[in-house]
């Protein structure tokens, strides 16, 4: 701009200035004049800032009016006076005084046979795992005292990750310190706001939390219904054909579980993989219940379904069931899994798994590897035997949900026996305790969309349950239901 020249190192004579203006071409002066007018106009423009917009005569309340509104405002109490769920609260008081293995002792001295916890491979109480954990405790202490980024990485963590990757035949594994947070952190680190996730409608709550945290569009398909899923995928594909530009940047995922905790059945992984490649949708499988329980050697749903593990983009699992410690992991190709080391919230911003628990998990995994599926096969046969006997002997008394070889089964009172309500099932569990059996109802939060319409007792089978233990379970179920039906 001719006029606004800094006079730092240039000494313009005033006459030179005027001469310069006169000698400039007209269009230049007109242009600059317009610019100045434009800037001045902008300065006096009405502000579009939302906070200023509310201002204006009479729109903003005076302080006195505000104070009055504040005085009148009545918040709800922080916790509403919802009635105490005594049966649920009682479970906090029912404290075990021994390890929660195949049998559990309680403070009243009773020892119960455990059909309620996910100790599928009977690793709780295994001396080898306990000794390894104790050795680690004597070396590392208990806590890891920091997140993975800040000296919370111990050699046991690296070793366990390497071991997990090798066990599954994948490139990389990432270790989490809590089973619930594993899938709940994994999903939102890949799926973002405008992506689409196809999820089975009976997915567990941890997956639902992950879906919610991702803010993606969630499309639920009927449980294990690949035809319905294909229909939805087809619809989406047509939608994509109409909007190719948007489709190019919209990632799509399918999220399923290997063995559904809420139903006890197994996902049709082979068909899902076919759909994956046909519609170009990435496949995430949650394997908390299928690690160690499915597959010829306990390697989960991929081995069971005969699908190559390379065909699944990501496998996430909590190790709190079969491997009997705490934590979780995600395993897959380096391309997919490594991303979580910087963007998995539960990995980056949480203290790492206590090293003694990582060592215990490592030992448990070694045992699974060494056993080459022996306990897995035994578990499947025990589950199957139980299932057949349930169907044969308790026909009109209890209904069973779940695959025959699945170690998780859901029991419900048959309508001929009585009303299948939560209090009725809780009463059954209490009666079971008197008969020396530990049973539990499956618990859900109110917002869990994957919970069944009917409450149930969740049975968990241990590979070492003997025939007599199963026999006493069946005897109890039969006599209890018969007693109910008579009333």
């Amino acid at each position, binding site marked *: 701009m001719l006029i606004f020249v800094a006079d730092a190192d240039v000494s313009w004579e005033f006459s030179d200035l005027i001469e310069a203006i006169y000698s400039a071409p007209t269009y230049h002066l007109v242009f600059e004049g317009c610019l100045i007018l434009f800037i001045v106009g902008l300065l006096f423009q009405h502000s579009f800032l939302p906070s200023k917009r509310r201002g204006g005569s009479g729109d903003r309340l005076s302080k006195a009016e*505000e104070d009055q509104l504040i005085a009148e405002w009545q*918040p709800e109490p922080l916790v509403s006076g919802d009635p105490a769920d005594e049966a649920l609260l009682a479970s906090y008081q029912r404290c*075990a*005084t021994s390890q*929660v293995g195949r049998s559990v002792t309680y403070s009243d001295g009773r020892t119960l046979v455990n059909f309620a*916890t996910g100790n599928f491979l009977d690793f709780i109480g295994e001396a080898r795992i306990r000794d390894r954990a104790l050795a680690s405790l004597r070396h*590392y*202490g208990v806590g890891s005292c920091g997140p993975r980024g800040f*000296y919370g990485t111990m050699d046991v963590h*690296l070793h366990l990750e390497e071991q997990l990757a090798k066990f599954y035949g994948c490139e990389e594994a990432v270790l989490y310190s809590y089973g619930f947070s594993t899938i709940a952190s994994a999903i939102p680190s890949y799926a973002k706001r405008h992506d689409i996730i196809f999820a089975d409608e009976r997915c567990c709550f941890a997956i639902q939390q992950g879906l919610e945290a991702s803010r993606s569009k969630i499309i639920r398909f009927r449980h294990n219904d690949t035809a319905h899923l294909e229909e939805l995928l087809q619809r989406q594909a047509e939608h994509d054909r109409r909007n190719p530009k948007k489709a190019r940047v919209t990632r799509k995922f399918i999220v399923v579980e290997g063995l559904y905790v809420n139903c006890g059945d197994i996902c049709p992984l082979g068909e899902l993989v076919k759909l994956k490649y046909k519609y170009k949708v990435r496949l995430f499988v949650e394997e908390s219940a299928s690690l160690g329980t499915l597959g010829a050697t306990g390697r989960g749903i991929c081995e069971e379904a005969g699908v190559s593990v390379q065909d699944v983009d990501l496998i996430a699992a909590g190790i709190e069931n079969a491997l009997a410690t705490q934590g979780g992991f995600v395993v897959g190709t380096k391309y997919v899994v490594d991303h979580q080391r910087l963007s998995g919230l539960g990995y980056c911003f949480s203290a790492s798994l206590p090293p003694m628990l990582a060592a215990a998990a490592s030992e448990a995994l070694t045992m699974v590897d060494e056993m080459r599926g022996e306990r897995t096969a035994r578990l499947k046969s025990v589950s199957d035997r139980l299932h057949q006997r349930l169907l044969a002997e308790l026909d009109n008394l209890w209904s069973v949900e779940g695959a025959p070889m699945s170690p998780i089964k859901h029991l419900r009172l048959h309508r001929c026996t009585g009303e299948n309500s939560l209090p009725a099932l809780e009463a059954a569990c209490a009666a079971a305790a008197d008969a020396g059996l530990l049973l539990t109802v499956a618990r859900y939060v109110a917002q869990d969309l994957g919970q069944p319409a009917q409450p149930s007792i969740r049975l968990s089978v241990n590979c070492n349950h003997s025939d007599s233990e199963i026999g006493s379970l069946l005897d109890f179920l039969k006599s209890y239901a018969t007693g109910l039906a008579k009333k």
Partner: protein
Amino acid sequence: MADNDHSEEPTPYIEAIVTYISYVLLAVFGHIRDFLRNKGFEANMIATEPDRTKSFVPLYQNFESFFTRNLYRRIRDCWNRPITTCPGAEFEVMDRDSPDYGWTFRYPGSTTRAVNFGSYNYLGFAESSGYCADAAVAATEMYGCGVGSSRTEVGSLNIHTQLERAMAEYLGTEDAIVFPMGFATNALNMAALVGKGCCILSDELNHSSLVLGSRLTGATIKIFKHNNPADLEAKLREAIVYGQARTRRPFTKILIVPDAPQVEGVYSMEGSIVRLPEIIALKKRYQAYLYLDEAHSIGALGTSGRGVVDYYGCDPRDVDVLMGTFTKSFGGAGGYIAGSSRLVRHVRQSSHSAIYGASMPAPVAAQILTALNILLGRAGPPDEGKRRLRQLSVNAQYMRARLHQLGLIVYGDRDSPVVPFMIFMPGKVAAFARLSLAHGLGIVVVGYPATPIIEARARICLSAAHSLDMIDRSVQVIDKLSRLLRIRYSRRQPPDWTRDRTRAWAEAQLAEFSRPLAPTHVASSANGVALIGA
């Protein structure tokens, strides 16, 4: 308490400009290298999409990982450093080198011994021997390592109830409930307290677990300026007066979530303490509820270690929800929520973690319970709890005073055991991290995105396990390095209180506990645990 009102020294202009220039240069080089890699002139070591899924929509945007690929990757040996021993006062860091500037690591198998200023071990309970470890051993032998069921099913152990009772007593609340993961305690339990139609007033630098927990509740979230009660009051008034955004209906509840003391930013970066009395006054005046996350202050602040509530002498009943973690001061893992029995009963019934997640393993619970008992004076040598608290406070003030006197820009309050000092430039950050480890100091450095882009810093976490000799030695090393790297940016005089925090003062403070410290037993790293092969 009187020294909380000092303001942090602002970033000097020259350093800010030079730091920006460094990042611009790095970005330019990054683009050049990306270009060379794409055209094949340079080996491309980035993990790429496997062939089977090449035609799928790409998982990551290219520019998202620009920073990771070109800046972070080159100096990533400063983070995720593996250790082979207990994270006590000293540890052994596994040596590793990278033949290809950070793409892959090789482990020659040797380790470097260093003083541990990186782990959160405020009261020194991260020990592999002693009362806590013995209790954990006993618990492991009795209960095993895992439970396999949630608290609301059959996963409750005797030791959980004991721990909850002890925690409630320690904090002065009616009841408490414990969870196995600290991150999950925030992320999964906020939804039990507030939901749609409520408003959460969250500090701008809150920890990511609080951010995630707030998002999962479905409530409206409003952000207030960091540790600024005036801004909080303005936002409170606005929330009450104008209600929900579109419908103008009033909010049903308002929950204030101030920045957890010392847990600021994505990791704990600043070291300053939340202004609790003012926030409590505000909460009472406007009938809001207060959710206080004491992850870093429980056990570390206050005359008896009961956290920031104790530090200010406030009544724990004024805080509606007291939350904290066991990872930092108790040497364990997990978190707790404490408050009135009504609140805790509600959490027991509706917490996602209590209903779906497995319960806390017994050895962890035993470790925390023993640490609590030591602090309450019921276990361990007499006055052990008080000794640790005093040692931590003395260590923190002594270290901070020495660093101020060196001329570094040190952030944070006088009593905070987190001592960050500024480095600013990315190159110096990496140099400091590498040199300090070579000289036997394990310090954490942090940069973008955990801190604002020009405010990269190093952070020291003091512990009651550190001795004054360790601190003196470390300050000598920092002295040498800070001179070499020219990071003595402070243009101010050191604060007045630093003048009398000398070694003599520190020793006098500790004189009444004149027992010699238990030798920190650092076992050798060859312990039958396989290391990563080359």
